[in-house]
C-alpha cells in the first residue's frame, strides 16, 4: 500500500483521537453522575473515550487502506483529488460574502455576490458567464424566496 495512504490513515486516526480527547475534557466539566443516575457529563465522556479507541484502531489496523485501493478503481471516485485552491477558495469566499452582505446589505447583494464569487472559481467560467449566472439566480431567488415563499429576509437593508 502506498505510503501516502498510510499517512492519511494515521492522520484520520489522530483526528478522531483529538476530537475524542476534546469531548472527554469538555464532558468532564459537567456532572458525571453514576450509572443509575447519569449526569449530563456521562454520555460525552463515554462517547469521547470510544472515539479515542476507534481512532487508535483506525491508525493501527490501516483498514481504510484496503478500501482506498478499491474505491480508487471506481469511476470518478478516487477521493484523492488535490484541493483545488481557486475553486475551494471561491466557494468559501462566496458563502462568507453571503454571511456578511446578508447581515448588512440584504438578500439581493448577498445572493449576487455569493453566486458570482463562487462561480468564478470554476476554471471554465468566464467573467461574463459568472455575471449572467449571478444575475439570473438573484432575480429568480428573490422572486421565489422573498415573494413566493415569504422568507423573512429583506431584499435590501439600508
Amino acid at each position, binding site marked *: 500500500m502506498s505510503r501516502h*495512504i498510510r499517512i*492519511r*490513515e494515521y*492522520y*484520520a486516526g489522530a*483526528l478522531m483521537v483529538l476530537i*475524542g480527547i476534546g469531548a472527554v475534557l*469538555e464532558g468532564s466539566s459537567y*456532572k458525571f453522575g*453514576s*450509572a*443509575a*443516575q447519569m449526569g*449530563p457529563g456521562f*454520555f*460525552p465522556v463515554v*462517547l469521547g473515550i470510544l*472515539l479515542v479507541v*476507534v481512532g487508535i484502531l*483506525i491508525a493501527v*489496523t490501516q483498514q*481504510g*487502506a*484496503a*478500501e482506498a485501493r*478499491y*474505491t480508487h*478503481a*471506481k*469511476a*470518478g471516485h478516487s*477521493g484523492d483529488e488535490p484541493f483545488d485552491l481557486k475553486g475551494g477558495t*471561491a*466557494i*468559501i469566499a*462566496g*458563502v462568507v460574502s*453571503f*454571511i456578511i452582505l*446578508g*447581515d448588512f446589505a440584504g438578500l439581493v447583494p*448577498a*445572493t449576487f455576490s*455569493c*453566486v*458570482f464569487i*463562487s*462561480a468564478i*472559481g*470554476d*476554471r471554465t467560467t468566464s467573467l461574463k*458567464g459568472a455575471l449572467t*449566472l*449571478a444575475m439570473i*439566480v438573484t432575480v429568480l431567488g428573490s422572486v421565489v*424566496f422573498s415573494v413566493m*415563499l415569504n*422568507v*423573512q*429576509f429583506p431584499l435590501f437593508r439600508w
Partner: protein
Amino acid sequence: MILSALNDLLYGFSVALQPANLVWCFTGVLIGNLVGVLPGMGVMAAISILLPLTFSMPPVAALLMLSGIYYGSQYGGAICSILLNLPCHPPHAVTCLDGYPLAKQGKGGVALGITMLSSFAGASFGIIEMIFFAPALVTVALHFGAAEICSLMVLGLLVGSTLAKGSPLKGISMTLLGLLLGLVGTDINTGIGRFTFGIHELLDGIEIVAVALGMFGIAEFLKSVNNVRPIDTSHTHIKLRDMCPSRSELKQAAMPMFRGTIIGALCALIPGTGPTIASFVSYATEKKLSKTPERFGHGAIEGVACPEASTHSSVQGDFIPTMSLGIPGDAVMALLLGALIIQGITPGPALMSAHPDLFWGLIASFWIGNIMLMVLNVPLIGIWVKLLAVPYRILYPSALFFICIGVYSSTNSITPVILTLAIGIFGYLLLRLGFHPAPILLGFVLGPRFEDEFRRAMILSRGDVMVFAEKPISAAILCLTAILIGYQIYAAFRNRQAVGGKMEELDNSLTVEE
C-alpha cells in the same frame, strides 16, 4: 389481517389523493427525478436543501414530498448510469456495467424501458412488503421497553455505519462523531448547556439542516469543484419509440427482474443493507445463474433489469424500520426522520397508531409517486437527456445559494449559515481523510433519543448494565449486532489480504469499461 391492511391502504389512498398532497407528491418525484439526472447533485443535498421549505407545510405533505425526492432520484440515477456511464448515485453503479454498453450499441432506449419496468416492479413489491411487514413489526415493537429500544438503536447505528461504505472502523467513528454533535445544546434532563463553548445560539442545538447541508452540500462542492470530468453525451440520443422493449427482450428480463425484486426485498429486511448492497448482490447472483455469464458487462439486458429491480424494492423497504421503529437505516432515512421531528412528531412504534394518515398516506403515495414517475419518464426522457448536459459550473454556484438561503430560512437568522460553512469545511477535511460522512447524520438524529432511552433504561435497572443482556429480546438484538459487525470486520480483513472479493471484481470491471 389482509382485509384490515387493505382497509388501511384505502384510507391511505384517501389521504394521498387529496389534491394538495397529490401536488406535493408530484413536486417531490419531479424534483427527485431531476436531481437524479443531474450529474454531480446528490439526493442528500437535494433533500436537505428542500427541508427548510417543508417547515411550514403540514407533516403529511412534507413527508410525501421529501420521500418522493428520494425514490424519484432513483429513477433519474439510472438514466445517468445508462447513458453517461456515470455512477453518480451509488446503487446504480452496477447498472453502468451493462447499461452503458447497451447505450453504445444504440440500445439505450431499450435499456431505459427495461429499467422503468424493473423499477416499477421492484418498487411495487417493496411497497407490498411494507404494507404487511411494518404493522407486524409495530405490534412487536410496542411491547419494547427502554432497554430493547436502546439495543435496537445500537443495531441501527452500528450496522448502518459499518455496512454503508468504506472501512467499518471509520464508519463507527463517524457515528460516534454524529452522536457527539447531537449532544450539542441544552441537556433536557438538567438544563445544562453542553458543548456550547459560551455561544448563545448553540443552546438550541445544531440545526439538522446545517449538518446535512454542510456535510453533503458544501463539503461535496469543495471536493468536486474543477475536478468533475467533462461529460460525454454522445450516446444520449433517445427516441420515444426506442424505449419499448421487444417481446424477446421482455422475456429475457422477466426472471432477472423477479429475482432482483426478491433480493432487494430481503436486503431491506436486514438492517443496514440498503439499495447499494442489494443491487451488487443481485447482479452477482444473476451473473452466476446465467447460462451465458460472458455476456455480462457487454450489454446483457438482464444486467440492467436485476439491479434496478432490487434497488427499487430495497429503497421502498428502507422505509420499514424508519417508519415502524423510528430507527433509520441510512442517512437519507435519518434526514426524513429529522424532518418528522422538526414537525413535532415523535418517531417510533407509536407513530402508526398516533398518525395513521402519515403512515398509510405515505405508503399510498409511494404507489402514486411510482406511477407518476413511469408516466413522467416516458414523455420527458428527451428533456432529462438534455439536462444531463448541464455543466457543473452552473450547478454548484446556484446550489450554493440554495444552501445559504435554505439554512437561513430554517431560523431566519444568519448564524446557522456560519455554522454550515464551518461544518462544510470540516466535512471536506473528513472526505480528504477517507471518511464517508453519511453515518454522522444517523448518529446526529438518533443521538438525543438514544441518550434519553439509555438513561431511562439505566434508571429502571438501577445502574445495572447487564439489563441489556438479561432481557431476551434485547439480548437477541445485541447478538445480531455482534454477528453482523463481526462478519464485517472479518470480511474487511479478508478483503485486505486476498484481492478478488466480489465487490472488487465488479469494481474492476467498471474500470475496464471506461
